[in-house]
Every structure is written in structure tokens, then in C-alpha cells.
């Protein structure tokens, strides 16, 4: 089985300064991979490089193969078609991930229609609307027919993130990249969104690249974890093993910090 995403010795430089160096990872269908590290460790840049959307002025070297096609060095035109079909992303801040001036239903409909065009179909308005409400129900948004008419600012943070997930699903991607999808949410909503992501990834047999700095979140969301620090991979392995027996001092620090936090909560209760 071919991997959905294979990154080999990826390096990203900006103005001569290395930001990411020698990162290799792969995600297969149905596999959930976590990428953890502190702010500025290069997690998000690695994800952007994977979809060929590095900010201007940054250069990537190495190899990024998305659904078997090389992304590094490819023209934008070559990658555009690949992106919609192979991969979708969910971002940290659901408020900026949605167009503030478009109703949620229209935003999801746009993706539904684009996919239909790609498949050579031209669905009717009613068909599109049915699919939109179907997707919204899928991500457990209440009363989809009514909520489809809402603007992002009229929804709660959790609802917005669910809507963003619905948009990502509308592409029928084989790989889902989630860049800190729960960081902006409160803890109870976090748990719900994580559960939703897990269910969807399992049911659709998608690959998941989950980026986070939050250890407990990563622990519940993925099977395999990679730890990134200052642009370099310092540790990788099955999530339980890495968390139980961290080898690299940095991972030890991360795990201990999370444990101390848990104990503090335990003592308070």
C-alpha cells in the first residue's frame, strides 16, 4: 500500500537560516500520525510544505510526495489539482478559517460544487443543499438546515470548527492535515471535536496528520507520534511508548510537564 504522504529529509530555509532540517515522515491510509513540538519548532511549516503552500521567501529541499506526486519544485498549477483531491486541512483558529462574509452553507456548498465539477458532474441546487446539510449532520452540527444560513460570527467556536471539518470532508480527501484543530476550543468542546475527528478518520479510512503542542490531545488522537524541536525530529514511535518511556531529554521534559499538570489537577480535586 502506497503512503498518502511521504516526506524525506525535508529542509526549509528562510533567508539562509534553517527553519526545518532533515525531517522525514510518512502517513498511510487509515493511519493517524501526530507531530508535536513547541511554538516555532517547525510543525506548521512542515505541514505547509507538504501541500506546497510555503510562504513566499521560504525554500524547501528534500522530497515531499503527496499521493505519489512530488510537491517540491512542482508548479502551482500542477499542485492545485492534487490538493483538492488528495488532501484537506483544518486550522487552529476556526474564525479565520471561515470566510466571515459567506453563510456557512454557501462555504461548504462551494467545496461540494468544486468536487462535483472535478468528477464531471453538475448537481442541482437542491442536490448541493442536500449534500451540504448531510455533511453538517455528519459533523454533528445541530439543525443543519437552519445553521446553514448562519454567518460564522453567529456560531460558537465549536460549531465553527465543526463547520470547518465539514468543509474539509466535502473534498473527500484521502489525507487530512489538522493544524492544532482544538487549541482554540474549551476543554469539553475539545474532547467532542477530537472524538468526531477520530470517528471520521476511521469511517473514511483517511490518513491523519495531527499537529499539536498539547500532549494529552495528541495522545488520544493518534497512533504514532513524532517530536519536533527547533526544526529537527528528536523522537518518534507509537504514542504509548513515547509517552511512557521518552528517550530524548526534550520529550522527557514535555511529558513531565504534562504529568505535573495532571497531578496538580488531581491534588486540587
Amino acid at each position, binding site marked *: 500500500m502506497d503512503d498518502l504522504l511521504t516526506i524525506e529529509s525535508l529542509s526549509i530555509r528562510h533567508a539562509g537560516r534553517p527553519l526545518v532540517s532533515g525531517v522525514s515522515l510518512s502517513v498511510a491510509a487509515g493511519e493517524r500520525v501526530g507531530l508535536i513540538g513547541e511554538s516555532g519548532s517547525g510543525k506548521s511549516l512542515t505541514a505547509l510544505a507538504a501541500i506546497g503552500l510555503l510562504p513566499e521567501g521560504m525554500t524547501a529541499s528534500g522530497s515531499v510526495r503527496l499521493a505519489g506526486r512530488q510537491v517540491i519544485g512542482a508548479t502551482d498549477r500542477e499542485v492545485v489539482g492534487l490538493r483538492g483531491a488528495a488532501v484537506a486541512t483544518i*486550522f487552529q483558529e476556526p474564525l479565520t478559517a471561515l470566510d*466571515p462574509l459567506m453563510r456557512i452553507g*454557501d462555504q461548504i456548498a462551494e467545496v461540494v460544487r468544486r468536487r462535483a465539477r472535478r468528477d464531471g458532474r453538475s448537481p442541482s441546487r437542491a442536490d448541493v443543499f442536500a449534500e451540504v446539510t448531510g455533511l453538517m449532520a455528519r459533523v454533528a452540527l445541530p439543525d443543519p438546515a437552519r445553521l446553514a444560513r448562519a454567518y460564522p460570527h453567529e456560531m460558537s467556536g465549536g460549531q465553527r470548527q465543526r463547520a470547518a471539518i465539514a468543509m474539509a470532508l466535502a473534498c473527500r480527501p484521502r489525507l487530512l492535515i489538522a493544524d492544532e484543530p482544538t487549541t482554540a476550543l474549551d476543554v469539553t468542546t475539545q474532547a467532542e471535536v477530537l472524538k468526531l475527528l477520530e470517528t471520521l478518520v476511521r469511517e473514511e479510512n483517511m490518513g491523519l496528520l495531527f499537529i499539536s503542542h498539547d500532549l494529552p490531545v495528541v495522545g488520544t488522537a493518534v497512533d504514532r507520534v513524532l517530536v519536533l524541536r527547533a526544526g529537527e525530529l528528536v523522537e518518534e514511535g507509537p504514542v504509548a511508548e513515547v509517552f511512557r518511556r521518552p528517550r530524548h531529554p526534550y520529550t522527557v521534559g514535555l511529558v513531565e510537564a504534562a504529568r505535573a499538570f495532571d497531578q496538580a489537577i488531581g491534588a486540587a480535586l
Partner: protein
Amino acid sequence: MTAATPVLAPPTSMRVTPTFLIGATLVGLHVVVGLLTLVWTPYDPTAMTGGRLAPPSLAHWAGTDRLGRDLFTEIMVGARIALAVGTGAVAIAAAIGVTIGLLAAFASRTVDDVLAATLDILIAFPTLLLAMLIVAASDGASLGTAILAIGIASSSIVARLTRILARRVLAMDYITAARVSGTGWLGIVRIHVLPNIWPTLIVNFALQFGLAVIAEASLSYLGLGAPPPNASWGRLLQEAQATVYTAPFGAIAPGVALVSLVIGLNLFADGLRDVADPTRRRR
């Protein structure tokens, strides 16, 4: 590329403020009067119909000018000219400005830097002076030249605004999400960038409209606008200047017309923003 067809019905609740109502009324009045002159005016605007420099009377609501032409008729025709110049100039400024602004926003950094610097230089140049240069460089003063000159001279401001607004939208995650899902740059412009920058642009267009009306009056005042016997407000003001102490109404009447249209446009612009932006709309 197919047009964006919204799945959902257009918004029903709109927020109409008193400001917007006053502005719309003033502008509407000018539009109605301007259109009316196409089919009817109280007198022939070029005919000498009364005594020279007569004060306002029942027969001549705003008095007569130094040639005995009915001033009210001339002001009505002036409204049509002002609106024509405003519409034409804003259309030209929008077409040039939005295109250049969007290109700059999407261009590579080098191209963007060059365009931005050029725009800054153009903006530093007074609009009226630039318009005068364009008129002087062309075959001669005419209504068309004035429209073109004001339109080109105002386009740099529209371009810079468009560029800044578009850049801000392009930095948003939903643009990245759209690009990830395979939307090309034209699609991004149509679906996300234009709708998001539209509310601010439309307000700016209404303000530019007011500035264009003033610019046209200024050009005509200087003899660079529509040549006589076109009854431009600027020309009426210039002609009334010599007799402003003996027949002040000749200057007051076109002045009031000009000010009321420009104030109306500014109030209208303010109200438009509330209508165009759903996040500012009360439920």
C-alpha cells in the same frame, strides 16, 4: 468560470440608519432631477428668458444669470453633468484601480513593491493637478476628457486600497483552506476576495464619487471641464464670481447644489457600509 450561485436566499434583514436615509434622499433627489432634465426643464437652458441677474422669483426660482438664462434650469442640468462625471470617473477608477490592486496583491514581492511604490508616488501627486495635466495633454476640454482625467487620477487611491484590503484577506486561513481544496486564484478572487473587500470598496467608491463631483466643478471653474454652454456647477460658480456682491444668489444656488450632493454622497457612503457588511447587521 461559472458565476457564484448562492444556494441560499439573499439576506432579508438590512439595517437602514437615519444617516443612510438622509444621504439616499439627497442623492436620489439629484438623480431624479438629473434624469428629468433629459426630458424636461423649466426653460431652455441656453435661452435668455428674463432680465439679467434677476433675483429669485416665482417665474425664476433661483433667479437668472448675467445673460438672463434661468439659473434653476442650469443647476438642474448641472446635476446631470455632475452625476455623469461622477459615475464615469468612479467606473474608470474602479476598473483600473481594482485590477491593479488585485494584481499587486497576488504578484510576487518584487512586482508588488514596484507597483506599491508607483501608487504611492501617484497618490502624492494632487488628484486635481494630475487631472489638469491629463486634460491639457489631450485634444481639449470636453466632458469625456474630464471624466477620463478624473477617473485615471482617482484610480491610484482605489488601487492602493484594493491592494491593502486584498492582502489582508489573502493572509486568512480560509484562503489557505480554499487553496488546499484546489481553488485557483481567479476562484479565490471571485469567491472570497471581492465579497470581503467589497463593503469597504463600495464606501470608498461613494466617497470618490463625491470627490469626482468636486473635481469636475473645479476643472470647469478653471475652464478645463465641459465647455460652455454645458451648465456645469463649476462654470456657474466661476461666472457668478464677478457679480457675487450684486447678485449673490448666482453663487449660492450652484454652491448649495454642489454641497448637498457631496454631503448626500458621503452620508450615503457611510450608510452603505452598514448595509453591505453582514457582521455589522443587527439581527
